[in-house]
């Protein structure tokens, strides 16, 4: 401390105020720190200066933060949109694949039905042929039976005729043969007997 009672501040910079710019940096630093001339000239607006400066700092910080937030939102939004688009595309492709699979399955079913229909038609023809054959055989059997029946009726008549013939032949054969009577009838004459003349 010198004789004036003022504690000198250490020299500033290399030029010790030899140049004209060293104190400029001091005041620039003072502005950066927020002023502080409240004790000078009765300035009551130092707080306003500080407030203005602080608002300036805050505004710059807010702008920077806003830019960062917007960037993050934009990036996130883009990523969300891309992810949503990818999900939607995958879902659409999955539906398409599913539809294609269903179409193939329907095609297979249609083919199976066509084949089955063919089999049904073939089976029907076979059944019809079998029925026709059966009818034919039945008809033939009936005809044979009728034939046999008819033949049997002729045989009966023949047999009757034969029997008759046999009987006639027997009758003829025994016509002149003494026959012993099978029964007796006694007759003593008239009563009283009469003399022979």
């Amino acid at each position, binding site marked *: 401390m010198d004789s004036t009672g003022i504690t000198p501040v250490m020299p500033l*910079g290399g030029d010790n105020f030899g140049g004209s710019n*060293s*104190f400029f940096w001091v005041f620039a630093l003072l502005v*950066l*720190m927020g002023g502080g001339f409240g*004790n000078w000239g009765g300035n009551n607006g*130092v707080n306003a200066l500080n407030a203005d400066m602080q608002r*300036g700092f805050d505004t710059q910080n807010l702008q*920077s933060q806003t830019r960062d937030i917007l960037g993050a939102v934009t990036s996130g939004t883009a990523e969300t949109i891309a992810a949503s688009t990818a999900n939607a595309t995958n879902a659409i492709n999955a539906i398409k694949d599913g539809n294609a699979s269903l179409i193939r399955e329907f095609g297979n079913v249609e083919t199976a039905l066509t084949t089955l229909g063919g089999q049904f038609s073939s089976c029907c023809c076979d059944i019809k042929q079998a029925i026709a054959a059966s009818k034919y055989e039945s008809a033939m059997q009936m005809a044979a039976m009728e034939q046999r029946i008819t033949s049997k009726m002729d045989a009966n008549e023949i047999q009757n005729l034969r029997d008759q013939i046999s009987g006639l032949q027997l009758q003829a054969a025994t016509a002149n043969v003494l026959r012993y009577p099978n029964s007796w009838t006694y007759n003593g004459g008239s009563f009283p007997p009469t003399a022979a003349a």
Partner: protein
Amino acid sequence: MSYPAILQQLARTNPQMQSIRNMMNIVKGANNPQMMLDQMAQNNPQLKQAMDVIRQCGNDPQKAFYALAEQKGVDPQAILESLK
């Protein structure tokens, strides 16, 4: 409005900024700017605090200014423009 534009507008209209510029001109015109600055620091705690910051940065006010500007995230050129 960008921050440099805010500061420039303050420099033109704000009384405190005008006071700082006036004091700066006074110190600039003094026969012994160093002593003038020391006397100011005796009467103004904020100025004394600024001087302490400069001392911490190796008695280099320019270095101290840029360091504090970087710390606060402020464009130093905008402040320098407001003082011109």
